[in-house]
């Protein structure tokens, strides 16, 4: 099997095939509990042997198969290996003889186990991870004679990182070390020390086994009376199934908004898969990070009975009672249990890319259905690929390295900690065109706009809507609301451009409104002392802007008091309303990031044309 080409069986779901086990004809297969497991460990530590032996000892092999392979080995003078048995099973499948070995599975009295992927393929880390990501429990093999090796460590770490807490560590080939308790204890001690050293503190049980002779596999071995624990399989059977996802708070990442008008279908459907929880018709739901809210009008489906509630696991769709603009990547939840929202989070990550993950560069984050530019905010710890031992002063994350780091997205995203909700707590990172890393979120990290964002969230969730919806206004005005901010030093013609823009938009029939910072300063800010904090000035400006924007206007502002540095704070208060920051800089020396930079020498017309192009680009207007 170790010679076979790298591959992964692509199953994402348990498979209920029972074709090898007779059923009464026509009867539904009994719903036996199932568990996906993965078998990992360093090459030659006995993974294939374990699988072969398990299949044989639990009666999962086709009749006569084992004998046939043994005879074939005897005939050709090769010592028998269980790996040959697995090869033979795969060959048969290639030749189309049996169909029930596409993925190995075996049964105990307690349940069915599906072994994800064949051991030989695990040698390739990408396959190991793809397989382990679907597993509910794992068996990690360590050769008693060879001891802890590179992949023993790496695989152990990855299991922890993928959130697989149910792991049996098998110290295999105990026959080769005279069934010595000392050797077993030594390996257990070393491996536990390694795990705690890298902060992987998941409960793990150790079993001394001899896979080849089937000792301590399905029953206790007489050769190791010092071992008081259960056999490997008995331990596996004690692992509980994952908690019911329906009981967790509602999370549905928005996958798409569909409106298939071509055949006269007027439904506007918010589609996605419910990761956790339940949604019911009439529920008041909120979408993060935009903070929009609506109530569920209907649950849609094709060729299904109408339903008024739907739970975790379903790829479904809803129509809403209010027409709200939401986009893919938002997370639908109930108001009381909304996900976290921010631009920074702490994560554990494994890197698979050919090129290292480096600081100061943008990558693409894919987290549930959201996709966002992301970069390293801070590298806390990098564990080296080969040793995973000490903390190395690495400035980048190399291939097969694992890291503890803080990531920063360009725009806020909705997420959860993996320990709370897996579906919205893990992500991949794309470098170029390739998925180059995967990780889990371990903590939320505040950014500078956190307080403002919380303020906006509370405000939006409690917002009292009038009888005219945002979509009604958009239809009437022919555009969505947007903020166009002219910033720059005093006396650089900001005001002139802002006026020209307001006029031009208005003359085109748009609902445009000019606001000078002074108007806010002299009124809303009247109570503030001269040395009021900049933060409070920005907050008030942002709230005023937000009010005007909810009336559907394209707001054109010009202000000396608020600069480019404050743009993200203002944005935090106006949510997902598009904004355009234009810096007027006659010196031509500014390098701060903005949507448009002008010198102040351009004609009004030129600037107006450019801004309108930007508004179109942001889909504010057609």
């Amino acid at each position, binding site marked *: 099997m170790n010679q076979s080409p790298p591959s992964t069986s*692509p199953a994402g779901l348990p498979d209920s095939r029972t074709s090898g086990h007779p059923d009464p004809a026509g009867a539904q297969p009994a719903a036996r509990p199932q568990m996906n497991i993965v078998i990992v460990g360093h090459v030659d530590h006995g993974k294939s042997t374990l699988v072969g032996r398990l299949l044989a000892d639990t009666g999962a092999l086709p009749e006569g198969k084992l004998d046939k392979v043994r005879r074939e080995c005897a005939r050709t003078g090769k010592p028998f290996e269980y790996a040959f048995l697995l090869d033979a099973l795969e060959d048969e499948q290639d030749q189309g003889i049996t169909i029930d070995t596409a993925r190995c599975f075996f049964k105990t009295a307690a349940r069915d186990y599906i072994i994800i992927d064949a051991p030989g393929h695990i040698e390739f880390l990408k396959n190991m991870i793809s397989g382990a990501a679907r597993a509910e429990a794992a068996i990690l093999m360590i050769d008693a004679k060879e001891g802890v090796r590179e992949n023993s460590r790496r695989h152990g770490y990855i299991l922890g990182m993928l959130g697989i807490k149910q792991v049996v560590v098998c110290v295999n080939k105990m026959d080769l070390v005279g069934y010595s308790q000392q050797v077993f204890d030594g390996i257990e001690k070393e491996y536990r020390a390694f795990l705690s050293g890298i902060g992987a503190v998941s409960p793990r049980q150790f079993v001394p086994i001899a896979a080849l002779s089937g000792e301590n596999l399905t029953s206790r071995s007489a050769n190791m009376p010092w071992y008081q624990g259960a056999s490997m399989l008995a331990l596996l059977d004690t692992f509980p199934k994952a908690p019911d996802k329906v009981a967790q708070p509602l999370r549905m990442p928005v996958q798409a908004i569909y409106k298939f008008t071509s055949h006269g279908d007027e439904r506007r459907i918010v589609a996605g898969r419910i990761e956790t929880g339940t949604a019911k018709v009439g529920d008041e739901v909120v979408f993060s990070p935009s903070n929009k809210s609506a109530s569920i009008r209907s649950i849609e489906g094709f060729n299904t009975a109408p339903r008024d509630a739907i739970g975790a696991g379903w790829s479904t769709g809803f129509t809403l009672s209010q027409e709200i603009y939401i986009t893919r990547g938002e997370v639908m939840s109930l108001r009381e249990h909304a996900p976290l929202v921010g631009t920074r989070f702490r994560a554990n990550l494994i890197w698979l890319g050919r090129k290292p993950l480096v600081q100061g560069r943008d990558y693409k984050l894919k987290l549930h259905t959201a996709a966002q530019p992301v970069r390293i905010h801070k590298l806390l710890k990098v564990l080296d690929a080969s040793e995973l031992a000490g903390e190395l002063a690495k400035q980048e994350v190399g291939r097969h390295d694992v890291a503890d780091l803080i990531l920063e997205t360009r725009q806020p995203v909705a997420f959860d900690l993996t320990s709370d909700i897996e579906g919205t707590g893990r992500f991949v990172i794309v470098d170029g065109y390739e998925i180059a890393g995967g990780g889990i979120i371990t903590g939320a990290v505040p950014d500078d706009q956190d307080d403002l964002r919380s303020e906006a969230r509370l405000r939006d969730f409690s917002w009292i809507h009038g009888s005219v919806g945002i979509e009604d206004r958009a239809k009437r005005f022919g555009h969505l609301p947007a903020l166009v901010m002219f910033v720059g030093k005093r006396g650089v013609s900001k005001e002139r451009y802002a006026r020209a823009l307001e006029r031009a938009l208005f003359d085109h029939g748009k609902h445009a409104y000019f606001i000078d910072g002074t108007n806010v300063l002299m009124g809303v800010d009247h109570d503030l002392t001269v040395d009021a904090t900049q933060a409070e000035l920005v907050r008030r400006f942002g709230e005023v802007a937000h009010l005007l924007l909810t009336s559907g206007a394209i707001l054109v502002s010009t202000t000396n008091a608020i600069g480019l540095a404050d743009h993200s704070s203002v944005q935090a208060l106006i949510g997902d309303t598009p904004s355009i920051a234009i810096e007027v800089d006659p010196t031509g020396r500014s390098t701060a990031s903005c949507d448009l930079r002008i010198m102040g020498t351009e004609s009004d017309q030129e600037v107006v044309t450019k801004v309108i192009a930007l508004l179109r680009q942001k889909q504010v207007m057609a």
Partner: protein
Amino acid sequence: MDHLDQLEQQSVYIFREAFRHFERMCMLWSIGKDSTVLLWLARKAFFGHIPFPLVHIDTSYKLPEMIQYRDRLALEYKLTMIVGQDEATLAAGATYPATAHLAADDPRKVTRKQCCGALKSGALKATLQGTGVRRKLNLATGAYDIDADREPWHGVIVGARSDEEGSRSKERYFSPRDKNNAWDVGDQPPELWNQFKTDFAPGTHVRIHPLLDWTELNIWEYIKRESIPTVSLYYDQGDGKRYRSLGCGPCQTPIESTAKNVDDIIAELRSGKLRNIAERSGRAQDQEGRGGLEDLRRDGYM
């Protein structure tokens, strides 16, 4: 949620991800039971609609029932139905059936595999890339008109299942092919937590496999549950024979079976004589030596 629900929901998710990420996406419809289930799942995913074209590669040797069934469903569901064909090879008579009468050492003789290579792989490649003629069903007249659209499709939905044979059990849900349609079995992207490979260099295209986790039995159980219409060739019409999978007439032999309806087939697969016999054993081209299918597959044949 039962097992069929789980399979269905995962397939629907994959469909929606694919539709989201490919502006130019199509679905291969072989008319067989798998791709017809696929068609049904597309309607599940898009709430009754099928917002992309269906492509059928017609080798001209398909059984007539298949073509009738295709056109009936296409008109009923108002599908954007595209048919591609290797017209040059057919005109030249360079096919297995057309040369079957020739002596074994005749240089003009075409093997089954070569025939598949041209009429299926080649025609598929040309149709997807737009270098071959595409004919589109005119929903008003029921005729096939030459399609002006020759833009390549980059995302191709395919009804492959991993239990069909070894080479397919190595597949991923989203499987990139390079410019030559080649499939690099050894170096496939990781597929983590339903995050699929959805970013591509220009020129590559991707096969998407929503049915990967389904078994033959699951397919029939689902056909029954959803009452999906299927071609009559799958059922014994009284002569004790039926087709287990559908391909070209000359290379496809019916199996001995008296299964007359979906229930009979399910019983046969669960506990009857088909229990341990793989589905494709009735297809002659698969028997032309080991690894043949993987070769064809690398080459773009489904």
